């Protein structure tokens, strides 16, 4: 009897201690918080879906690893007409999907047909500028634009313009998760919200140069578990860690021994928005006074553990051409107090405002950021700030309805061009969507001119002028540009911290 019981106890112990083969050695495992939503270029507008498609499909254009300059991928070359309105793409021959279908100009046309017809979330990026398109020849694809649009190749490099295999239905969005691949990797196994298992695509044209064998992307629900999983060795790398954890990986000697942190600039910016229609922010003096008070260095230090943030003095990021720092670099309390006094606010009659940030949406550090901004503004003694927060969808609703007066947002670009940092924010056609309701006909004209100009030098001059308005009217206060960090086990090779998309197909052990 006793023996039996002992055995019953010992059995599970034995089972538990026996090693599980699990993830194989040649698999690079990535942990992430991002979840893919829909694997259809006509519909996908979220980071993870786009990343997966970028690694498994090819577009006419792509980006060179580690750069923001569009380079031909499926296309071998492009001819752009002098007026900048016609683009003729010449396709490489013999490019195929894993099901054997060749990718021709007609494949591209059909894919665009779907985008124009189905009008999915990212469709406006194409439909907004494209007048017409056709397959001129089996390997020649011609596009006519509504107006000259300089960043067009960047749009073509976005997944919305990718050719898709024939399993994607003509009249509806693709609902499955496995499709014939044309990119360096293909989806082998996939479970929503849990993991994606990618393997090398044997039919990829550049097959030999792909060193990756298998990539497993595991999805997590909180950043802390990712950190633990890294330490435990469940995953090899991740870019979803909090700044606090990243700082640990950068400084803790034990962790430094095993892991490496790859930091690179990204094109994500963070900024404060003023609803210029709402009192008291309809007064540019108040907006400017607040702009004078913001101390970016302090925010970085206290809220972001002094890493991965760069002070930003314009809405266009630093590492982008056309950047001109227009905002004041050092906080100036005296000037702010003077401006506030001009607007009628003094210590005896203080300005009472609300500052909003979205709960949870940008991580927990924004919470601290809000506290610091509050204390910076209150230092004058003239401003009283109440910090308010709400969950993201409600926040968006309040924003578009103009409820929010002064609030925090972030922006990740759709295409890498200064236009994507100017048009959506300052052009009157895009007003409601970003909550400032700023309108300025003069500026509209400048922006339109800048986006249709093909000469880069002239464009640069135009953007400099546009950025002057940014400081003059201050509908936004740029705060930081983020740097992205990947923490990876030193065994993992081929880690590129790409500002545009992560290249899983370069990873190997």
């Amino acid at each position: 009897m006793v023996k039996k019981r002992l055995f019953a106890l010992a059995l599970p112990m034995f089972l538990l201690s026996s090693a599980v083969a699990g993830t194989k050695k040649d698999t690079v495992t990535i942990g992430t918080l991002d979840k893919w939503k829909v694997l259809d270029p006509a519909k996908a507008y979220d980071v993870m879906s786009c990343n997966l498609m970028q690694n498994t499909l090819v577009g006419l254009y792509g980006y060179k690893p580690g750069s923001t300059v569009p380079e031909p991928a499926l296309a071998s070359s492009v001819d752009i007409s002098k007026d900048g309105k016609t683009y003729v793409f010449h396709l490489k021959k013999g490019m195929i999907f894993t099901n054997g279908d060749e990718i021709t100009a007609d494949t591209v046309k059909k894919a665009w047909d779907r985008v124009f017809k189905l009008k999915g979330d990212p469709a406006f990026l194409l439909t907004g500028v494209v007048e017409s398109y056709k397959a001129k020849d089996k390997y020649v694809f011609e596009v006519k634009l509504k107006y000259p649009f300089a960043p067009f190749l960047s749009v073509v490099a976005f997944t919305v313009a990718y050719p898709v295999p024939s399993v994607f239905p003509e009249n509806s969005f693709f609902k499955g998760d496995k499709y014939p691949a044309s990119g360096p990797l293909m989806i082998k196994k996939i479970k929503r919200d849990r993991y994606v298992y990618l393997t090398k695509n044997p039919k990829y044209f550049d097959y030999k140069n792909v060193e990756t064998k298998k990539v497993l992307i595991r999805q997590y629900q909180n950043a802390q578990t990712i950190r633990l999983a890294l330490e435990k060795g469940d995953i090899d790398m991740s870019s979803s860690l909090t700044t606090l954890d990243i700082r640990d990986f950068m400084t803790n000697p034990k962790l430094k021994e095993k892991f490496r942190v790859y930091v690179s600039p990204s094109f994500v910016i963070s900024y404060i928005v003023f609803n210029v229609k709402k009192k008291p922010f309809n007064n540019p003096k108040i907006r400017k006074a607040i702009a004078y008070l913001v101390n970016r260095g302090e925010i970085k230090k206290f809220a972001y553990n002094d890493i991965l943030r760069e002070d930003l003095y314009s809405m266009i990021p630093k590492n982008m051409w056309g950047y001109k720092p227009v905002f004041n670099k050092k906080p100036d309390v005296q000037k702010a107090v003077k401006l506030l006094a001009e607007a009628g606010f003094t210590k005896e009659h203080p300005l009472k405002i609300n500052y909003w940030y979205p709960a949870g949406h940008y991580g927990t550090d924004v919470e601290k950021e809000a506290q610091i901004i509050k204390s910076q503004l209150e230092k004058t003694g003239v401003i009283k700030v109440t910090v308010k927060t709400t969950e993201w969808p409600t926040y968006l609703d309040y924003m578009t309805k103009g409820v929010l007066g002064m609030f925090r947002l972030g922006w990740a670009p759709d295409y890498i061009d200064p236009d994507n940092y100017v048009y959506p924010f300052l052009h009157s056609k895009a007003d409601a969507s970003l909550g400032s309701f700023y309108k300025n006909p003069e500026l509209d004209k400048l922006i339109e001119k800048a986006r249709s100009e093909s000469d880069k030098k002239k464009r640069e001059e135009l953007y400099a002028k546009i950025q002057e308005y940014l400081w003059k009217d201050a509908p936004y206060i740029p705060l930081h540009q983020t740097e992205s960090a990947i923490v990876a086990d030193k065994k993992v090779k081929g880690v590129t911290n790409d500002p545009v998309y992560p290249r899983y197909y370069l990873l190997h052990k």
Partner: protein
Amino acid sequence: MNLKKIQLYIGIFIVAMLFFIAVFGPLLTPYDPIAISNATFSSPSLSHIFGTDALGRDIFSRVLYGARISLLVSLLAVFIGVALGTFLGLIAGFFGGKIDKFIVLLMDAMYAFPGLLLAITFTAFLGQGIRNVAFAIAIAFVPTYFRLVRNQVLSIKNEPFVEATKVFKVPLWKTVFIYVFLPVVPTLAGILALSIGDAILTEAGLSYLGLGVPPPTPDWGADLSTGQHYILQDYWWCFLFPGIAIFLAVLGFALIGDYLSEEKL
């Protein structure tokens, strides 16, 4: 001494301390709980006996002030729960018929629903803030108190002494108070104490999901859920003290609640 009594006394002691801190806490600390300073993550010392957090705020002050908020939220939540539950229970009990059936159905549905899920749904839509969070937590309590009151109403409704109150024109509130409310007080007291503990935990859970009382309000739930990020760093004081505060508060109320509901048995 009787161990049962010890349980009660420990509970009462903890809760009494809690109320004491909530009332007099602000007098015991020289720091402003929301004032940020350069001394971030300083470990417990004589000047900051519980250390400071990521923004250099004094954790001791935050824990003391936090008693206020945590108690306020949980007491408010329980109060709303009792008020709504009683109100609906009275209506259902006295009116009976279809109204009763309808409310009972609704309450049954709510009763089986996980409290946290309800609270999340409501805070997601109502937005944060002490009142909203309290309300969201309260929703889950309503069915319990509803049942209690409705059953009491049904059991006394047709008693002759209630009929008599009509004859003697006793005001309705008096009848309700004497015949409905007073008899359920013993049962109520136990559940009430347990509910308060529950509310503190639910609030912490909401904070963990980013839906609790918005910062910088000093609040144990929020402080613990921010503090638990530092479990892997060596900043143990960031989660330990708010954690202990929650643990003791919930334990205190649970000890009392358990004692009271057992005395009823």
